[in-house]
């Protein structure tokens, strides 16, 4: 036997094998990979070619999952029901895998605990991204989402908000997805539990993952709706030079809480001229002078704009209607 040839085998061992990585879109679990080498040589004058045995390796399943929150902090009112957090559960492993979903709404680091509805978890069956009657309530062990490699499920979590709460209070809730094959430290082996009878190995996630959503008791929301009516010099409604446009803006406060020092401002459109003393709030005329006591004014710089000091509003204040007129230059 040749000692010098043996040295090659020893050298080949240099370097460590990389740890298994979560690899979305990697080789699918159960894939069979065959390898056959070939040798060519001469014996005297004869050329010979021979194959080796064929070695088959079967790709094992890596169990990995990612949960991401899809909804930003949800603004809520105290006592509200049916408030929805949207999550996405993605199978980042390489085989078909069912996942068990659980929620935890009694988390620390917030001011209140959202109360899970019954049922609290829905699968977004109609893929609308919102809770609709078509969505299926989730029952653990019954309709655990079974996801192909790289596939995801949208999961909706429904809570009620306790009362009373102060503005800005936050309530957090967590959704966890855990592989039904098993969970454990990365690298944990679940013998024979993988797709197509392969071994399954816990990936970087350990086979489970979670994400935390948040409800925030919102400050008052102000919605503004603007409309325009054109009256031309000839009694029609064409936007021609000299036509008069009456703008109407309705500001509607919604939600809980109180907003103070609200100032409405709207720029005078280009190529139009403000009609003096046309500004009104809820039908009552306002002056254009900023110095006087009433709420209205015409601002000259940096841009020409009408301003109305709306002061303090709550939802019970109701819609505030502002009108002003311009003429087309």
């Amino acid at each position: 036997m040749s000692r010098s040839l043996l040295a090659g085998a020893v050298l080949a061992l240099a370097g460590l094998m990389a740890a298994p990585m979560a690899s979305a879109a990697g080789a699918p679990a159960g894939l069979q990979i065959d390898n056959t080498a070939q040798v060519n040589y001469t014996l005297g004058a004869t050329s010979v070619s021979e194959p080796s045995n064929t070695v088959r390796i079967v790709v094992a399943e890596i169990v990995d999952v990612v949960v991401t929150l899809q909804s930003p902090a949800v603004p809520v009112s105290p006592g509200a029901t049916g408030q929805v957090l949207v999550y996405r559960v993605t199978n980042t492993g390489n085989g078909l895998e069912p996942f068990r979903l659980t929620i935890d709404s009694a988390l620390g680091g917030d001011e209140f605990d959202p109360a899970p509805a019954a049922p609290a978890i829905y699968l977004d069956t109609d893929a609308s991204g919102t809770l609709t009657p078509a969505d299926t309530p989730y029952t653990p062990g019954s309709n655990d989402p079974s996801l192909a490699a790289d596939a995801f499920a949208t999961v909706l979590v429904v809570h009620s908000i306790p009362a009373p709460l102060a503005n800005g209070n936050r309530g957090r809730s967590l959704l966890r997805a855990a592989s039904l094959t098993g969970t454990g430290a990365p690298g944990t082996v679940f013998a024979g539990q993988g797709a197509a009878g392969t071994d399954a190995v816990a990936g970087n996630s350990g086979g489970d993952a979670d994400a935390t959503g948040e409800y925030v008791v919102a400050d008052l929301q102000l919605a503004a709706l603007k409309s325009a009516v054109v009256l031309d010099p000839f009694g029609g409604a064409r936007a021609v030079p000299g036509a008069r446009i009456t703008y109407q803006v309705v500001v509607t406060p919604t939600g809980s809480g109180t907003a103070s020092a609200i100032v409405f401002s709207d720029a005078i459109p280009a190529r139009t001229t403000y009609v003096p003393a046309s500004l009104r709030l809820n039908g009552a005329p306002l002056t254009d002078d900023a110095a006087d006591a009433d709420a209205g004014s015409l601002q000259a710089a940096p841009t020409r704009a009408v301003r109305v000091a709306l002061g303090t509003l709550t939802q019970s204040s109701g819609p505030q209607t502002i009108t002003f007129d311009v003429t087309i230059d």
Partner: protein
Amino acid sequence: MNTATVSKLVIGALALAATSAVAADGARKGCVELKTVAEQEVEYVDALGQRATRLVPAAKVVPGTQVVWTVTASNICDKPADKVFIDNPIPAQMSYVPDSAVGAGADILFSTDGRQFADPAALRVSEADGSARAARSSDYTHIRWSLRNPIGPGQVAVARYRAALK
């Protein structure tokens, strides 16, 4: 690195080769018996508490893991085998780990099509736009170990490389 374990592994492979040569006696016309083995390197803690690695049969191959492919060529005749070269296609779904191919006394050549083999520095591939560039290790599809010397009767040549599962 645990050299003792490695030597044992290779001797084990030789014993296997010899056995099958006897079983196939008379049925085979060739003189070089080729054996392919797939292994994975795993870390363990040895008797002295040191971290070490060893090769184990490939199992639990998940995306990202490396497989150590070892091809052993044994001359089971009483004549030397000359002008020996060993070809191994890099399996589909696997990519060659750069600089991992070894083989004592062999010139190691690569191919991007299984037909033309060349030294890595001389290997070029065509881009879609017709331009040519130096081949990268990820372009390799086949590896060839071209032995500089004959394999004498009873001698063994070993070729080895690593490939990572995509």
